[in-house]
């Protein structure tokens, strides 16, 4: 079927087709169809498959930071009850694959690169036996002769400019800083983060002759197939991955990781299916971390509050040779003006688990610091922080000159301010006290790059008037099932009950996968394209032009004719595979989702405990596909923002590099009591450059700057500016005003 557009998304699709269809599904806050299965326990998560004769594997982690495995004392362990094998195969991996890597060359696990790296897998009849044996396994090591440092701040740490991250320079920042009416030069640091997905990493591997089936918890199946095949030196078409339900990923399941490879290798060796479930502690120690960052932000502004100079330089870390470097300045590139610029990321080579994508890599920590620094500039100028932001939105992307596809930042700041009641904020700190609590308010912009990636999906319209959407797209709790069904129902004029969505199986066409906020718009566009092709056929069968065709409630009409859709399909289903690939629109336009955060916090006058009392977020990300799942994404992002602002921090012991707080008891994510009323405002817009859906990504937007708003609110409350996240009470108490001092404040 010939469509008016090619696979490559080379020019904006401004037909806005979804505004002309009539089913009324798009944007509706429909429930997730798999929700009842999940809350009733009927959705089969990866560890829950009961395969006959399945053995259990448990990973053994290195207890030294760097060196080589001299000997694994397997014999005593093999004599333990139920133990079948102790495996340290060359195919196993030391490092998780990065997102979209599509490769994961076998890595010799006898070399240890970081404390906690898996060095073996123990296989037994039961999980308890395997875990017992894994604990009992004695491994002798030879420490590395020339270890790399454990601390990114170590003078011995090699610092590199990452290959894919060229510094952005323009004008003369130093001179701008010297001559500016107002200048801010501040250093912030943010700690490492764990993804902390609810479901731990798990794989059940089963070989059927030379074919491998993995049931596991992954985000990007079509890439994961290639990665596991690469490890095992088999052809990707011999691998099938089944992952219909994934209990969260947040970046940690983008690439294939240790347990999947270990399960496949073990299953091959013992000739039985093998399940490897990582313990919570193992997930923390081995899978993926967000790098800590040290960020220097320089802002120079003229007397009118216009930014003339902007510097954002970051030091992040990763293992030697690892390509990924937390792209801290990603949104700084396009967000605010200032011709004199220096944006730069450097990476220190250290020995810690792989740093990779965790919850909005780049913007999550970059925006929280930039937005805190913007607050400092607003304070220095004496200008309302919203006004400062509005005054500094460039017409085109600085240095590059690229136009913006759409930008709802001003609208978000204004809508959010109105809903939040920003006009009641005290402009100077320490003005409002309620009992023992200082109350303050803060604002921050939100920005996250928009990405489309290649995706395919098959849509089948059946003779009974029902439709089936099929793709290997995953649903990691985000709403893929709901949204893809809505797009198909809308395009084909079917009630949502008539649309079935099947996901998470690599026998289906390759979707985008879940990551980078691109799943919905990429795979959704592929679904839309497939439906367009079906519509062409239906129009032809009805005898009208495609543009005239109206599909609604199972009835096709156009050109003065009308017929049930089922009647047009007749006995043979209509099946089309839709495809989308990023094209010129990705380069011709700066594409990003925008928003604004507002936070009210209370800081305890005596103890420095900070509690977020309410938050408002307003977001513009193109067309809203499902108001409920989009709201949930924004809400969840803001909850992560609370964690990033107040509690989350990976604590490494710098003597041996081990992660001290490797579980959810001591790595503090926000709990219900930390999460107050959060208001989410969705701003409808159309961004035709972003996708044929006119939608942009929303998955990660809610975190990108949220912690900055909280930091700014803390300063507004008690006058303390802490430049080291998380803003725990120990960093505040020394600087708090005397709690007994006569307050200049009015008591609320």
């Amino acid at each position, binding site marked *: 079927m010939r469509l008016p557009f090619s696979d490559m998304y080379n020019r904006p699709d401004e037909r806005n087709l979804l505004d002309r269809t009539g089913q009324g599904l798009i944007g509706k806050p429909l429930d997730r169809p798999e929700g009842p299965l999940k809350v009733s326990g009927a959705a089969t998560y990866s560890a829950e498959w009961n395969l006959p004769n399945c053995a259990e594997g448990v990973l053994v982690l290195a207890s030294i930071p760097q060196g080589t495995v001299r000997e694994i004392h397997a014999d005593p362990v093999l004599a333990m009850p139920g133990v079948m094998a102790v495996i340290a195969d060359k195919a196993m991996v030391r490092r998780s694959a990065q997102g979209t890597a599509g490769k994961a060359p076998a890595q010799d696990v006898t070399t240890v690169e970081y404390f906690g790296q898996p060095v073996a897998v123990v296989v037994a009849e039961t999980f308890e036996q395997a875990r*017992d044996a894994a604990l009992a396994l004695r491994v002798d090591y030879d420490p590395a002769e020339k270890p790399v440092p454990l601390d990114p701040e170590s003078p011995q740490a090699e610092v590199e400019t990452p290959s894919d991250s060229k510094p952005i320079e323009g004008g003369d920042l130093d001179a701008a800083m010297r001559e500016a009416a107002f200048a801010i030069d501040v250093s912030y640091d943010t700690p490492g983060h764990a993804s902390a997905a609810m479901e731990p990493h798990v794989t059940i591997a089963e070989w059927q002759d030379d074919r491998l089936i993995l049931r596991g918890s992954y985000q990007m199946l079509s890439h994961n197939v290639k990665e596991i095949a690469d490890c095992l030196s088999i052809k990707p078409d011999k691998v099938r991955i089944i992952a219909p339900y994934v209990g969260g990923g947040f970046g940690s399941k983008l690439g294939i990781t240790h347990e999947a490879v270990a399960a496949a290798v073990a299953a091959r060796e013992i000739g039985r299916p093998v399940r490897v479930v990582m313990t919570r502690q193992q997930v923390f120690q081995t899978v993926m971390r967000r790098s800590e960052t040290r960020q220097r932000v320089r802002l120079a502004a003229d007397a009118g509050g216009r930014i003339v100079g902007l510097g954002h330089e970051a030091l992040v870390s990763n293992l030697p040779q690892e390509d990924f470097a937390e792209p801290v300045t990603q949104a700084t590139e396009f967000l605010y003006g200032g011709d004199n610029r220096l944006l730069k990321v450097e990476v220190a080579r250290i020995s810690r688990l792989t740093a990779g994508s965790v919850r909005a890599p780049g913007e999550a920590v970059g925006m929280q610091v930039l937005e805190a620094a913007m607050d400092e500039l607003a304070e220095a100028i004496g200008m309302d922080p919203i006004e400062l932001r509005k005054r500094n939105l460039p017409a085109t992307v600085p240095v590059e000159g690229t136009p913006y596809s759409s930008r709802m930042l001003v609208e978000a700041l204004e809508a959010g301010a109105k809903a939040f009641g920003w006009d009641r904020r005290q402009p100077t700190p320490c003005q409002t006290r309620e009992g*023992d609590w200082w109350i303050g308010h803060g604002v921050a912009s939100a920005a996250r790059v928009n990405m489309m990636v290649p995706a395919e999906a098959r849509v089948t319209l059946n003779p009974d008037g029902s439709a089936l959407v099929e793709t290997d797209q995953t649903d990691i709790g985000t709403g893929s099932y709901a949204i893809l069904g809505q797009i198909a129902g809308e395009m084909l004029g079917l009630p949502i009950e008539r649309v079935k969505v099947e996901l998470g199986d690599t026998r289906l066409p390759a979707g985008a996968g879940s990551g980078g906020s691109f799943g919905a718009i990429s795979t959704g566009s592929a679904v839309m394209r497939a439906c367009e092709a079906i519509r062409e056929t239906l129009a032809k069968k009805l005898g009208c032009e495609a543009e005239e065709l109206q599909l609604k409630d199972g009835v096709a009409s156009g050109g003065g004719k009308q017929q049930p859709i089922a009647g047009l399909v007749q006995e043979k289903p209509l099946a089309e595979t839709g495809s989308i690939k990023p094209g010129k629109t990705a380069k011709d336009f700066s594409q990003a989702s925008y928003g604004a955060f507002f936070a009210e916090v209370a800081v305890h006058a005596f103890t420095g405990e900070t509690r977020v009392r309410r938050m408002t977020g307003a977001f513009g990300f193109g067309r809203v596909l499902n108001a409920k799942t989009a709201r949930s994404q924004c809400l969840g992002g803001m909850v992560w923002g609370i964690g990033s602002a107040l509690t989350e921090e990976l604590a490494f012991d710098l003597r041996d590099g081990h992660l001290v707080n490797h579980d959810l008891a001591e790595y503090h994510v926000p709990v219900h009591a930390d999460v107050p009323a959060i208001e989410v405002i969705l701003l409808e817009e159309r961004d035709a450059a972003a996708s044929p859906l006119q939608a942009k990504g929303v998955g990660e937007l809610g975190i990108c700057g949220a912690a900055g708003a909280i930091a700014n609110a803390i300063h507004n409350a008690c006058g303390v500016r802490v430049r080291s996240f998380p803003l725990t009470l120990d960093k505040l108490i020394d600087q708090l005003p005397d709690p007994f001092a006569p307050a200049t404040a009015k008591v609320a």
Partner: protein
Amino acid sequence: MKAFTLDHAADAQDALDALGAGATAIAGGTNLVDLMKLQIAAPDRLVSIRRTGLDQIAPDGEGLRIGALVTNADCAADGRVRRDWPLLAQAILAGASPQLRNRATTGGNLCQRTRCGYFYDTTQACNKRAPGTGCGALGGFNRIHAVLGTSDACIATYPGDMAVALLALDAEVLTQGPDGERTIPVGQFHRQPGDDPSRDNTLLPGELITGVRLPAPSGGMQIYRKVRDRASYAFALVSVAADLAMEDGRIARCALAFGSLGTVPWRDRAVEQALVGETPSPALFDKAADVLLRDARGFGENDFKIVLARRALAATLAEATLSNPAKG
């Protein structure tokens, strides 16, 4: 986890027999099972004491006797506890989560072990877990560790809340053992580490906690203030349990206990003596803090606890004694 057997004791004597034969008692298991998964505890024989009938709350003179098997949830919800010993209810409700409190018991909670990360990580040195290996937390990441009652061998805290309230309330731990019954003041139940951190408390081999006795209610103002990194489901950084009475504008009587500040629930009578008979003021609170913290020693990341304890004490005393402490 090591393979183990599990038996149910029908009554206290049955349990004692099992303990005498080398079994380890399990009640709610909220801590022990975690320790078993990590093989920090590796008993081959468990005896469940959940069916021993020690799950009653009963009057005891003017006081109250709380059975060892009374769950934290039931204890905190008991009308008598809430009315006469609100400090205890507050402290229990400040800990863990509803699910854990439904399971955790009064006796078990007293025996919960430290949250020190070096204790839980079997790749690390820990004198409490593996005597003689050293203390990883000294010179390591010790943000949650103690500043009082530490030794060169151990700086881990007792992490719980309930025992801190019991300490301020002058409660007693009731035990039964091979040599009969004992009554141990809560203040003598937990052990400072000294040179043997492996023993958290003064329970003897084969001895079983049967309950806790609260003395007659004090009728004072009772406040449990728990300072922590998040609003719920986090161990205290510092907690303060106060039971205080005022008379003619002066502090007539006060009991103060502190959690997560020392290696054991911490009570220092000298602090109370510094306050009794005095007119409350910020300066007085500071003086009391000076006494409390005179021997406090930080180990790096936990230095802030010394400042925090001072401020948390001031906040608690201000709340208990000043009519409107927030106003300047």
